[in-house]
């Protein structure tokens, strides 16, 4: 059951082979057994989950069930869910019970899915290892001495450890793709604007995008069908016709042109990752695809550009956490300024404060042009690189991360080394393009390696097609960590 696809689970539920309550309880039991070690979830609420499961069973019984009805989904703790504690991985929101539902949560509720719990994450999604969470680090299910990646590390670990049927994540600079790669699962960051950001606690508004995390491309397509769509509450949500992201899954790959950016296979990439990704490309050739070398000359600047723009937006987005209307308020203070400073200094962790400081600095008087404006200009150059590249190819492929999962604490005191682990994923966010990661083998220490697939704007169906065809031909995606 824990290895069934969403399609299979849906069929079993609709056929009455298992009820949603039974299925949900199976997962809750597994979480109770394994989560203490993995720490993938911050909050579970069996009562609420089972109540949703019972409602789903009613829908299943009376024939109003949809594709995801009754299926237990883990929600990243960045999504506000009414009545659920929503922490964003921070002490600041340790006791914040959301009074409303995020669009994504509403979409899953409407589909009759069961909210299985809120997954652990880097604090305010700022991190690449899940080590910045106030609620403790998440362990990689393949090797519990290693990080799961971040910021959607709890979601990735939960999917890999079969602690949910599927999960949601968010991706600002790689936060879906990088943990997906490090935990050996599939994850998709859609084109910016495809999934509403309403109710998703903002990190960097112009880069944040929610997406699905699952065990296969087929599952991702099904989840994206539920998550995507226009939402009038988000000004950046795009008004487009509803599409079926699974429509092209079974198309053959003959004639698919794959672009390989030479910059992604240069210095800094681990040999084990390089070899694994190259083997995956060879498999694609067997499936009928052709390969062309492309160049993304400005992509090397994506890390500095990102570490100006994302902190700038974050420094402003996180100003609302002031201890006045909700969230953490310092237990002692002398006056208003002291209340602000202490509440924020005590409520935010070190990495969040670091990024607020960077962001405040680059926006401050006298530095705006040299940092913020310059970064926005280079952002355009980076986006233009992709536009040029897509004249030569249909999809771009390369590694998701430069190495497999590193050891807990290994990069803890060197933020720059940590930031560089997102070097292949960030440019995609800056351009607003869709990107995904699928498992393509194992590197050193038998840790999973992710293949990144980058598509042109709104090309999610084609990317899912490429991923699914690969997953039909290989079985990396169905490997599970042993010994849990």
């Amino acid at each position, binding site marked *: 059951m824990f290895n069934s696809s969403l399609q299979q689970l849906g069929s079993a539920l609709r056929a009455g082979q298992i009820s949603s309550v039974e299925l949900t309880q199976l997962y809750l039991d597994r979480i109770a057994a394994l989560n203490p070690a993995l720490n993938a979830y911050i909050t579970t609420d069996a009562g609420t989950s089972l109540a949703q499961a019972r409602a789903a069973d009613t829908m299943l019984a009376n024939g109003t069930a949809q594709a995801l009805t009754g299926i237990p989904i883990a929600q990243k703790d960045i999504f506000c869910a009414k009545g659920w504690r929503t922490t964003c991985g921070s002490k600041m929101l340790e006791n914040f019970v959301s009074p409303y539902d995020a669009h994504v949560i509403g979409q899953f509720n409407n589909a009759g899915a069961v909210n299985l719990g809120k997954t652990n994450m880097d604090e305010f999604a700022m991190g690449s290892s899940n080590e910045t969470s106030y609620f403790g680090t998440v362990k990689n299910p393949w090797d519990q001495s290693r990080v799961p990646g971040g910021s959607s590390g709890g979601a990735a670990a939960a999917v890999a450890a079969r602690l949910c049927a599927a999960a949601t994540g968010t991706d600002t600079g790689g936060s879906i793709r990088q943990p997906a790669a490090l935990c050996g699962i599939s994850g998709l960051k859609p084109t910016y604007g495809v999934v509403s950001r309403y109710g998703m*606690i903002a990190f960097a508004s112009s880069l944040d995008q929610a997406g699905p995390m699952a065990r296969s491309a087929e599952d991702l397509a099904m989840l994206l069908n539920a998550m995507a769509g226009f939402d009038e509450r988000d000004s950046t949500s795009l008004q487009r016709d509803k599409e079926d992201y699974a429509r092209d899954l079974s198309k053959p790959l003959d004639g698919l042109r794959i672009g390989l950016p030479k910059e992604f296979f240069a210095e800094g990439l681990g040999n084990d990752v390089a070899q694994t990704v190259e083997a995956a490309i060879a498999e694609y050739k067997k499936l009928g695809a052709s390969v062309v070398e492309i160049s993304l000359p400005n992509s090397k600047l994506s890390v500095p550009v990102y570490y100006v723009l994302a902190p700038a937006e974050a420094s*402003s987005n996180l*100003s609302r956490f002031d201890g006045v209307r909700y969230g953490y308020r310092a237990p002692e203070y002398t006056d208003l300024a002291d209340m602000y400073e202490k509440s924020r200094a005590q409520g935010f962790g070190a990495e969040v404060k670091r990024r607020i400081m960077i962001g405040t600095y680059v926006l401050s008087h006298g530095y705006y042009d040299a940092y913020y404006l310059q970064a926005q200009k280079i952002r355009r150059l980076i986006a233009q690189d992709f536009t040029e590249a897509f004249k030569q190819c249909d999809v771009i492929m390369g590694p998701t991360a430069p190495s497999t999962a590193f050891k807990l604490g290994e990069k803890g005191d060197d933020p720059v080394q940590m930031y560089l682990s997102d070097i292949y994923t960030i440019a995609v966010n800056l351009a607003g393009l869709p990107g995904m990661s699928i498992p393509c083998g194992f590197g050193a220490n038998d840790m999973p390696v992710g293949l990144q697939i980058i598509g042109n704007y709104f090309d999610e169906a084609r990317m899912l097609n490429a991923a699914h065809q690969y997953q039909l031909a290989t079985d990396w995606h169905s490997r599970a960590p042993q010994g849990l």
Partner: protein
Amino acid sequence: MTWEIVIGLEVHTQLSTSSKIFSGAATAYGAEPNTQADAVSIALPGVLPVLNKGAVERAIKFGLAIGAHIAPRSVFARKNYFYPDLPKGYQISQFDLPVVGQGALTIQVEPLSGSGKPYEKTVRITRAHLEEDAGKSIHGDFHGMTGIDLNRAGTPLLEIVSEPDMCSAAEAVAYAKALHSLVRWIGICDGNMQEGSFRCDVNVSVRRPGAPLGTRREIKNLNSFKFMQQAIDFEVQWQIDTLENGGKIQQATILFNPDTGETRAMRSKEDAHDYRYFPDPDLLPLDITPAILEQVRATLPELPQVRRERYIGDYALTAYDANNLTASREMADFFDSCLNEIGTPNAKLCSNWLTGEVTAQLNRDGLDITQCPVTPQQLSGMLARIVDNTISNSGAKEVFRTLWAEGGKADAIIEAKGLKQVSDSGAIEALVDEIIAANADKVAEYRSGKDKLFGFFVGLAMKASKGKANPAQLNEILLQKLAG
């Protein structure tokens, strides 16, 4: 040696929309605290702004009314600072790309100190931009704490910034009044100054003639024209005294205390501000197409300046009368409605009545023209009887008092009260003949040169006619008959 005064105004007008600028919360004044503070107004994590069309249309309307350039693309920016009535920790405003560019407003200045004649002046308006209002801090008795009401947070504002073109309190007040009249005239703001719908910040500096601009101090949040005049007078004198005593003016934000008539600097430190403006990533550029512009233009009423010139040019009214009639759109519309009934040749008569008797009666009863108990139809009905000599001026006043107090129609009142004047020249001649015959001695005195006695005869004749004789006719006949 003399001083020159330099004044510029920043006026915050609350736009008269039903809902807030970035959310669907109500904007009604006077609601219970925080009952109109929705999720966006209290800045819950994850909520997002969506721009109100009504606010944009009103801004465009204003731009068109002052002949300004309407930006085809304008941008919303975040102005970052911490304050408890600013829940997001930033105000969404427009910074380097405002929706309304440079325009101008022609004002009629009446010198306040009695000296000098009224004159016309054109004040340049630098820009007008859309932004959100903040909440209110209430310094009541809350155990030494301040209470925060966020009902007002997110109310749409149009901030209208003038050039420093005014050089006296009289000019500043005239400009503020003209602006106040205009925003109400075009229906974008209710103009209620007590409720804070129209708030003025006044920048004041002084200099020696020909010298560069002096350092300015900004008087914040003036909400009455009287206070504005008092504050400017006090501030100008303070600055002159300071400079003449060898002091220097420091740039400062100051408050006016209506109880003492004095200004004082605010305690918050101006130099600590660094607003870190940057484009709001949650809002896309505001594009105003020619089609939208034309749509709004079609809803724009004839502007006060145009109507004023029409009254002077077409109806030969004095500038003074035309100003009074165009003080509000309701007054001007009332006037036009009257003219529709009785025809434009009677514009002067109609104007005299509106600016005279009608205005006086409104003032006595504390009403404005929209609450006038006498309709344009009723008033015109009465004026028509003046025109056709049915009633005298004094008879008309009595008709008007009755219309005001009891309603009805002029003709019926004239009939019921027997106010119809005698215009039958035969009847008047007979009456005059009788008087001449009965007062032979006085007639002789008159004929021998004592012109002053004419009034005596008029009085006798009027008395004899019980006040109903047409005065003009009576005069004519008397002159004729007395001449012998």
